[in-house]
């Protein structure tokens, strides 16, 4: 966890392997019937549907592991909790990769790297990514890095039309 440049929510440890694994990359050590792999689905929406269908039939006591980068994990976690899983019944294995950033200026989410700043793909404001994480959005908050120069990254420092 220490190799993350940003703070991540902490979860209680739990024992034993999960009963169901949803992962970005296939785990050869897991029974095929017990894992849902991103690559097997046409889209993330299809994968989410498959998980929802599994949880609908699942019995109380099920332990779920979500493994992948943050952009992959958070929407699935929200889905699993809505299906009735408790936070401590879900094991989150975060892999480095993309995460989501919510721009507070235009209220849009976008994928981002672990870098501390980026330019909002929607409104062009130069954002500093805060440590604040919104469980609801599954995203880190991005706020204007320099109020005097909000569009520092644009060629002439002007907003997009």
């Amino acid at each position, binding site marked *: 966890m220490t190799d993350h440049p940003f703070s991540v929510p902490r979860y209680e440890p739990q024992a034993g392997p999960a009963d169901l694994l949803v992962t970005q990359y296939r785990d050869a050590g897991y029974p095929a019937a017990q894992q849902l792999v991103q690559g097997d689905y046409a889209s993330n929406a299809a994968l989410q549907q498959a998980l929802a269908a599994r949880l609908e039939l699942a019995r109380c006591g099920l332990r779920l592991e979500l493994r992948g980068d943050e952009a992959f994990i958070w929407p699935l976690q929200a889905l699993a909790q809505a299906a*009735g899983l408790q936070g401590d019944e879900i094991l989150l294995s975060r892999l480095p990769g993309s995460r989501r950033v919510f721009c507070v200026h235009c209220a849009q989410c976008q994928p981002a790297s672990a870098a501390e700043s980026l330019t909002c793909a929607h409104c062009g404001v130069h954002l500093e990514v805060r440590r604040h994480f919104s469980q609801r959005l599954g995203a880190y908050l991005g706020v204007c890095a320099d109020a005097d120069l909000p569009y520092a990254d644009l060629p002439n420092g002007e907003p997009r039309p």
Partner: protein
Amino acid sequence: MIDVRVAAIHELTPVIREYRLQAIDGALPGFSAGSHVQVHLPDGRRNAYSLLGDPADNSEYRIAVRHQDNSRGGSRYLHQVLCSGDRLRISAPANLFPLYSKARQHLLVAAGIGITPFMAHSRELLRRGEDFELHYAYRSGSSDAYLGELRQSLGPRLHEYPAGIRRLDARALLKDRPLGAHVYSCGPQSLLLAIAEQAAAQGWSPRRVHSEAFAAAEPGLPFSVELQRSGRQLQVGAEQSLLEALEAAGVEIPNLCRGGVCGQCQTPYLKGDVEHRDHFLAANERATSLMPCVSRGCGSPILLDI
């Protein structure tokens, strides 16, 4: 504090009576299913009882009391002295046993007089149209309060375990439940433990497991305490709890359950031998904290850090 009048007393079984309480002036505060009130007894004691009426109806509060032979007098007073028309003083309702709003299925498990909070819960769940079951272990003719009423209102949602005929099997009860299930138990400690153990064994998160113990202080041997800050010395009688002794001396300690479960009355102490009887403190906290509503001295005098 609310002053109420005993509007009616009903004998539900030879050992359980129901008391209907109405406000002397003004209206009673509303309450949520699972709430309890503390009843203040003339000798200064306070006992907690679940409100078993419909939470949508606050024209009166209903409590049911089981006569306990070994009780320190609370149930004896209510059963033998209190009459219809008498005044009583109660605390405002507090809820330590609420329904979990996101549950997809609620499993209510009662033994004997532990049925009381579930009377309110099951009314609330019926009104909300939620998925639930009530599992009720009782002894026919003595600890089977409200059985007829529950059979009528709950139909197949009621599962009965009459003593000597059908055993309540916690393992079977929790097996094969949908993901959003929550279990609530109320009754003797052995029932609560059996449910909690089975839930853990079947991989349930402890956050799905809710319980309310019969919260009442048990008598013990007399002991003495000293209050560090004021230097005062107090004697705690055999039939009295430390919390009651403090209250009698004018020392108010926050409290809700008066049964060692809610954690409200946690009090630091500096020395002395303590018999910890609570279900709240972790082992490492017991060296410096005690719960005066149930725990007692058992050797060298206790020095409280208050």
